[in-house]
């Protein structure tokens, strides 16, 4: 089989997996009456002080969400940092949890997995590492809360902003089209350092609409993040 046919065959099968994954996620969210998916992204460090601070922020965030059961919590499903504590605290709050990670990075998985785990295929050149899952991770999210974070978080938020740019452009072209997707609402928690603070302070190159809190430095607590997310993605009553 030629390389081109091999690639086409693989593409066809990936398309089948895409359709099945989307259907499965839809059904899963429906069964659990979860309306929105909120990503928690940020620090991967297990430094005890950082962990305490982030636990407090995440608890504060969940406890101020109106109807928390309507929000599924998305992380990479790994056993460190914001990903780990985010999933653990979400479970304590009886919230639905979702993980997205590369299939070949299973050794970093937490022992009690999220309620739904999506494993992404390897890349077609070189080693598959974390961040290979980012395009899928970002597409699953309706909103994101950013706490500190390093390059992985920077990649995730950059992809979200790129997607938001095209969604905003589409909205400007046709403001009355209700079928257009909303932006991924990004809520950096100011004062948590590194990527969160970069997002708060950096100039925006292009108009991304209302995907950030206004002003961007205005959210400094979990409660503030809950207010922003709830205002943009209100629960159904």
């Amino acid at each position, binding site marked *: 089989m030629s390389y081109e046919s091999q690639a086409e065959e693989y593409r066809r099968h990936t398309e089948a997996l895409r359709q099945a994954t989307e259907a499965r996620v839809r059904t899963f969210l429906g069964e659990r009456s979860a309306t929105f998916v909120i990503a928690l992204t940020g620090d991967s460090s297990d430094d005890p002080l950082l962990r305490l601070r982030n636990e407090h922020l995440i608890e504060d965030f969940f406890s101020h969400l109106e109807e928390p059961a309507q929000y599924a919590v998305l992380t990479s499903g790994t056993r460190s940092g914001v990903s780990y504590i985010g999933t653990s605290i979400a479970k304590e709050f009886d919230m639905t949890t979702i993980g997205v990670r590369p299939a070949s990075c299973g050794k970093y998985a937490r022992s009690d997995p999220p309620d739904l785990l999506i494993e992404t295929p390897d890349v077609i050149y070189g080693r598959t590492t974390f961040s290979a899952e980012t395009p899928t991770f970002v597409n699953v999210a309706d909103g994101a809360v950013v706490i500190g974070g390093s390059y992985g978080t920077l990649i995730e938020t950059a992809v979200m902003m790129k997607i938001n740019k095209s969604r905003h452009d589409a909205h400007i072209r046709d403001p009355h089209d209700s079928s257009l997707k909303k932006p991924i609402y990004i809520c950096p928690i100011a004062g948590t350092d590194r990527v969160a603070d970069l997002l708060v302070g950096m100039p925006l190159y*292009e108009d991304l609409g209302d995907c950030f809190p206004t002003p961007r430095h205005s959210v400094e607590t979990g409660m503030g993040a809950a207010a922003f997310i709830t205002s943009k993605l209100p629960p159904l009553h």
Partner: protein
Amino acid sequence: MRQIMEGGIISPNTHLQAELEGLRRETEDRVRDFLTNNSLYYILALIGDSDSEGEVVVRNRGILEEFFDHLSDRHLYAVQTGGTEGGLPQYGLELAKEFDLPTIGVYPAASSKYALHEPHHTPADLVVETPDIIYGKTTFGSETPVFVNLLDAAVVLGGGYGTRTEASTILKVNKGRVRDARTIAKKQASGEDVDPAKIAGLRPPVYLCPIEGTGKTADELATSAPLEDVGDSMPDPAVRTGEEAAQFISSRLARS
């Protein structure tokens, strides 16, 4: 084609994984053959601005001409961009061809309609099309992990969120490579046995050269401290000209 959807796990099944493994090997062979047949050692990316006309293009072309002029052993380089119409991906490849450098284009198969095609354009000499993602719409940006895995070095001129994604992915890769090299060096220094396979598996970082003064992502990279230890993968002090960028890339790659 069924995939594993047992309990709460959605995962590519073994058939799909085997198919992917075949495709990955074939892609790596094609790249290796391309490099060997053209006596090439390095793959250098040009990433940045998507403007197709105006002062930015004139400025960037000037910087790149100076860069190629001053690049030592230029014949050892392939030049990689998105291989698509418009902006730096297009004029970067056109300029590389003017300097007789082989070219590579990497883009999502789903976006192939934007690729440089004949008769209106000269396509890249080697094209790598990346597969779709498994949730949502496959757009530009999904090719980034493959784009970065191919590289030895990258020059950044301006650039928006796509460029930031690429540069951040390079820095994430570099963080891991620098950490691995330091861990092994530390073990060796203390007389500990180190698995020879681990030493053989070490790779130099992807040298990342933002050109200060070209705006947006390039300026962000050039003027802010790295978030993590990425070794000497970026110039310090920052570079401002094509000549300085060529000196940085040439000296780092010659050493590695």
